[in-house]
């Protein structure tokens, strides 16, 4: 990896994360590159097992045995995160990069009030607070109230004293966002923030994230399985399949004219009222077993366009302005990346 690109906040290159299980080695993330610019919202789309969550758990330094990051560089704001000590990483995690989890009820601590959970983040990361004494406690309470107000929780001062079980699903997701944002991170990684929520609440939470992003100028990584959410909220999109990025580019371009057969298949799989009476065209078969995968196109077994030449290792190819795709069927005249 050379010098970081200007305007680039997070740059992941050649990331490989594997889980060594008794059944064999699962290559959950196999050579993934990610680039997130400052202030940008990038969508990461893929089905279960595509490696989207593991990629960003790796960025956060949250991979535990039997999992291991085997290769790759993770540069964040000029620092090489993989070279940091656990202590140095703790200073960044939660302060500069924050992550919200899909299931707010299990991610929150049921034994602490919301106020205490926000205070934990501030205690750990906020250096502007008064050193000690009642002034410090008051400053923490003020900040916590401010955070709950920011995420649109009514009567925040009273809500601070309540426990997670006293909130509805949408409110809990907001609280987790409040906790994640209380250290004013440069990057928010939101892992399926709305998957467990109803559509009307989903719309509220996504608008909230967009609004805060605009106000605080932070970057957002939105991990989701829902292409429609990406279409409405993200500048760029990365499509993952079986541990690899198969396509990336500006959202409008990728959705309007997908270059990888998997992206195409995903779009064709979405049932739409406009398609009533017509057949939908689901992708045949299922995701391959990630244990001991051969070096070949991973989508090949389900791809309508596959041929014998797909049985080799396929690299990302340029596929239009700012776009890349991992398919040899649609080469744009450019050279493959190594």
């Amino acid at each position, binding site marked *: 990896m050379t010098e970081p690109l200007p305007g680039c906040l997070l740059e992941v290159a050649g990331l490989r994360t594997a889980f060594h299980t008794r059944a064999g080695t699962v290559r959950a993330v196999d050579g993934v590159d990610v680039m997130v610019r400052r202030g940008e919202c990038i969508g990461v789309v893929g089905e279960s097992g595509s490696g989207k969550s593991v990629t960003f758990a790796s960025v956060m330094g949250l991979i535990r045995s039997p999992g291991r990051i085997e290769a790759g560089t993770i540069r964040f704001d000029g620092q090489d995160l993989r070279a940091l000590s656990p202590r140095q990483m703790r200073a960044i995690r939660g302060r500069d990069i924050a992550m919200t989890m899909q299931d707010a009820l299990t991610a929150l601590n049921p034994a602490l009030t919301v106020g205490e959970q926000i205070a934990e983040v501030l205690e750990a990361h906020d250096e502007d607070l008064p050193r000690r004494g009642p002034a410090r406690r008051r400053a923490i309470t003020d900040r916590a109230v401010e955070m709950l107000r920011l995420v649109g929780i009514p009567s925040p001062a009273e809500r601070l004293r309540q426990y997670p079980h006293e909130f509805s699903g*949408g409110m809990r997701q907001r609280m987790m966002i409040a906790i994640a944002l209380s250290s004013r991170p440069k990057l928010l990684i939101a892992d399926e923030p709305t998957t467990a929520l109803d559509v009307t609440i989903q719309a*509220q939470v996504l608008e909230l994230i967009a609004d805060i992003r605009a106000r605080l100028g932070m970057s957002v990584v939105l991990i989701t*399985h829902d292409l429609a959410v990406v279409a409405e909220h993200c500048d760029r999109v990365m499509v993952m399949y079986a541990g690899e990025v198969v396509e990336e580019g500006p959202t409008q371009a990728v959705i309007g004219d997908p270059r990888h057969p998997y992206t195409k298949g995903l*779009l064709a799989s979405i049932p739409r*009222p406009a*398609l*009533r009476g017509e057949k*939908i065209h689901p*992708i045949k078969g299922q995701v391959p077993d990630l244990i001991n995968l051969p070096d070949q196109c991973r989508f090949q077994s389900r791809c309508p366009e596959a041929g014998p030449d797909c049985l080799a290792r396929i690299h990302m190819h340029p596929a239009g302005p700012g776009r890349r795709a991992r398919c040899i069927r649609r080469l744009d005249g450019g050279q493959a990346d190594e």
Partner: protein
Amino acid sequence: MSEPLLSVSGLTKVYRGTPGIVGRLMGRPTLEVKAVSDVSLSVERGEILGLIGESGCGKSTLGRTILRLHEPTEGAIRFDGIDVAALPPREMKAMRRRMQIIFQDPYASLNPRRTVADIVGLPLQLHGLARSKAETRDSVAAIIEKVGLKTAHLDRYPHQFSGGQRQRIGIARALVSRPEFIVCDEPVSALDVSIQAQIIELLSDLKRDMGLTYLFISHDISVIGYLSDRVAVMYLGEVVEIGPVQAILERPRHPYTQTLMSAVPRVEAEGGRKRVRLMGDLPSPLDPPGGCKFHTRCPLATDLCRSRAPVSQSVGIGHHASCHRLNESFNLLEGETA
């Protein structure tokens, strides 16, 4: 018009919770949740009626009460001219051959200690539909192939299958007794997009080939809009709007339906689409608001809405909605774009 296959009138399901011994001694009242409140609807033979609403609105309870998996508190259920709600247990059992259900969770709804052949064969045994073991096995094998699995799968256990395959097993179990009516209770909600499309395609093929009638329950408007002939919208235990699918999608009349339609993210960019923001969460069903139940979140609510519940009115051919302000022909989806 001939008599509908299923018609439900004034169906109500109340769950009563006991306040516990301390509560009883202190004279606390019994807790009551009206999960389904005075619902009337019908399903024509060969039709798909979509039932949509957010979590907790009572859509699954309605589906299960229709099948008498939960006993109705009040109301009538007529299936093919027979008053199902009044059937004695013996006859109800025989009736169950004709009315089946497909569950949401393909992990929880299959017995992990039985083979596929046992699971799918059980309805045949219960209803005495096979004279010998060989005949059972033949029927099971036939239906297993019909749902896209192989006879080689018959002696395997549920854990050896993926989520999509398990859902196929659940579908085979529901169909093996050759029923006429199926309650599909969120059958694709737990599945990945590409697998979801496969199951939707399977369900529409089976409906056509076997002449089935579905009550299709889902929170996903895209799925409902793609599959259904007519759609019923539920809010806090009540059907607030029901009508032909085009009317519900394109000219929804109830403000809740309009909000729901506007909250769905779409893949295609649509110019001039306005997003109606619904404030707050679903009120607690333990303590539902008086008057129109939607008034706490409705942008159009007036004093009348707060004090008196609206009655269902006809707003088009086969299209009914319950709202006090229908005559004002408002449309929350038109006007300035957000």
